[in-house]
């Protein structure tokens, strides 16, 4: 305890003499605020151009156009254009991801589709991406309301082989039409997921992953000072009986600072969820990153070899862990490789208890391994 109280202010003061580290870490929450405020309400990931020729105000074509406009959110934004050519131009110069040409007589086209299979509307695409396929389904789902009525009307006409009382059928159909979401989303532990398409800024989606990689980098880089101490022998000279405490605090102080600012960034960006879960996961991450860092410095006594690991660990964490995209669905092998990175467990720890235990387990194992390597080194070197 005495060593801890002696060393803590010494190491804290040493860290305070690295102003760039502190400034950079302080810039993280500021950068997050910057990203939060650069997104306007009309910004969205995917942009869709809609062309509908001059139709009557209450016509199905205009109603469909209005419905699509009302669906705009931070994921997809539908916007109208005045001329058909503007749809093609928008896609060519990438101001729109795709476009739709809605005919002025939509209901006649739908009736024709039911009878003869001719197309209802035109979709203009640049690429066959998953995102444009999803937009096709959204547009078709809105056309489907009109289609569904005409489908049942056509069915009755064919089945009964007689004219159908359309007014009572339409009244009945309109009575049963509803707009509801029949799906609820949940995490592995059964906890409900917040509404995804509301104000969440997609640029902040990888924030948690980026912060975890940043914390790993801080832990790895804090060993520069340890290598310097080993070279000069200063710590052994000044604190011969407190080398383990010195070793631990040299990792803990920068990691703790980075973790605290990371948590602050999560709260500023509204990405943070339950406070206890966040604290538990962040503590686990700090333990895991410190453990990995401690093991690596004892495993690699040579500074050049240690330096070689850092960019590779960082870049591979960003790619192989689901920070931006989960590549595991496309390359299942990655789920085996990314077990070596604390980031993988941290990203799942909030809602997948096994990952939280794995994160702490990872930290404990790496600390024990590092301690074993340190003991071996001290005995034989």
């Amino acid at each position, binding site marked *: 305890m005495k060593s801890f109280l002696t060393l803590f202010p010494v190491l804290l003061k040493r860290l305070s003499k690295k102003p760039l580290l502190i400034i950079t870490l302080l810039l993280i929450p500021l950068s997050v605020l910057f990203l939060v405020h650069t997104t306007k309400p009309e910004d969205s990931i995917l942009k869709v151009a809609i062309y509908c020729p001059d139709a009557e105000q209450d016509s199905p074509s205009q109603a469909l156009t209005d419905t699509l406009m009302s669906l705009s959110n931070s994921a997809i934004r539908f916007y109208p254009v005045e001329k058909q050519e503007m749809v093609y131009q928008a896609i060519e110069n990438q101001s729109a991801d795709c476009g739709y040409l809605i005919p002025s007589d939509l209901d006649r086209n739908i009736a024709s589709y039911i009878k003869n299979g001719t197309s209802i509307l035109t979709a203009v695409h640049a690429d066959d991406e998953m995102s444009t396929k999803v937009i096709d389904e959204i547009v078709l789902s809105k056309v489907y309301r009109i289609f569904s009525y005409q489908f049942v009307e056509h069915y009755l006409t064919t089945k009964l082989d007689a004219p159908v009382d359309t007014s009572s059928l339409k009244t009945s159909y309109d009575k049963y039409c509803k707009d509801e979401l029949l799906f609820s989303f949940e995490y592995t532990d059964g906890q409900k997921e917040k509404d995804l398409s509301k104000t969440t800024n997609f*640029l902040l989606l990888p924030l948690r992953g980026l912060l975890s990689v940043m914390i790993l980098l801080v832990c790895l880089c804090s060993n520069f000072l340890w290598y310097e101490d080993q070279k000069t022998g200063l710590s052994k000279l000044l604190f011969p009986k407190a080398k383990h405490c010195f070793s631990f605090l040299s990792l803990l102080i920068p990691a703790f600072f980075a973790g605290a600012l990371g948590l602050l960034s999560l709260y500023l960006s509204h990405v943070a969820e339950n406070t206890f879960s966040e604290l538990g996961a962040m503590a686990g991450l700090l333990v895991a990153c410190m453990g990995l860092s401690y093991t690596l410095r004892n495993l690699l006594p040579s500074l050049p070899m240690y330096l070689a690991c850092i960019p590779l660990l960082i870049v591979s964490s960003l790619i192989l862990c689901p920070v931006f995209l989960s590549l595991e669905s496309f390359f299942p092998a990655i789920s085996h490789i990314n077990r070596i990175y604390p980031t993988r467990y941290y990203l799942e720890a909030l809602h997948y208890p096994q990952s939280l235990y794995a994160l702490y387990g990872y930290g404990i194992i790496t600390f024990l391994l590092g301690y074993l390597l340190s003991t071996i080194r001290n005995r034989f070197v």
Partner: protein
Amino acid sequence: MKQFNRYLFLEAKRIFKKLPGILLGSILLLLFLTGSIFFCQSVTSTTEDEKKIQIAIVAEPKEPFVDFMVSTLQKMKNIKYTLEFKRMSEKEAMKSFHQQKTAIIFYIPKNYIKSIFYGENKTIRVRFTRGQKTIVSFLMQQLCTAASSYILDTEAGIYSLQDYYKEHNLPAEASAELELNLKYINSIASLNKALKFEKIEVKDSYPPATTYLLSGIVLFLLLWGITFGTLLTSENIAFRNQLSLIGITLPKQLYAKYIVFFTVNLLLYLGLFGILSLVMGYAPAKVFLPFASHTDLWLFALQFSPVLLFSCSLIHCIFLWTKDALGGSIFLFGFTILSGLISGCFYPFSYLPDTLQRIAGKLPLYHGLHYGLEMTKGRFSTISFAFILGYSICFWGLTFLAEYLRKEQSE
């Protein structure tokens, strides 16, 4: 000149002493990582089905229509090559989910189909994430909204048929209802025929795989600078002053340091392209590599070298300005990631808000990436090249300024 060459040799010796460890370690680790991925991929993925994203449907064993729905979904043109639907028990689904074989689980509530007939809309639970949300989560939510519309509007059609039959006292309502249900399901499955597709060429579009490859190279070149933090920040002021006295002035000292640093990075750069050249022969890698032959690859490496010049200038500037390996490394990482995010390295550029797109146009990373992408199409982007060169000169100028101010202070 002779003294300058001697100093250059000394500087090279200082850095090259550490180089084998750094370079060899990095290349070995890179080879190990790449090799592990390819090895595990070839062992793990054996069938076409295993390459699809698996979705589990969990329902009561006696729940009607579920098998029919699953087989109908399997036939849908938009999804049949990428998604695979399987009916499972809850236990099997969770086991598969934990093993990461299943990506999404749909839980159909008990007596779901019966509830629809009685006008009650139960909620289907979707369990699809173990970790944080991604853009795929957003799109999944949109797809579920579309699916809700299909279900509710189909119900409206069925109920209005029921009312019509009741109002007009028509016989055989149950069989008509069943027949209409089946027709509705088939019509939803083939609804994409309602769209007439037109495809148009996009100006300046790049394959996503190429964009990510080049983003990876640019980011790696910058983040690689973390390795040199301790080497670039160490200095001997007395030695520096001695050098000035014998005629190797400060600009010459910086110039020598830069040449050596650039040479080291060039070796790494060549090593990186060497690894790409090795993996070019493997079929899975061809998806990512936009080069028809090894000659094209190495020609590209030569043409892309201005980006290496820029990355060296930036790294050199950060560490020589700050003289702090720890802080400089964290700053370099933060700068690279933030610039990369804004410049379209992680997400397609078109996804970004307009404000950020305007800012990105001034950033060196954006121009580095754009320059490389234009190269893959056989075009030379003068503006991007000018930006890269301009930023390189600026950072070099800042380095000189930092050292000059430091020298003035010490005097």
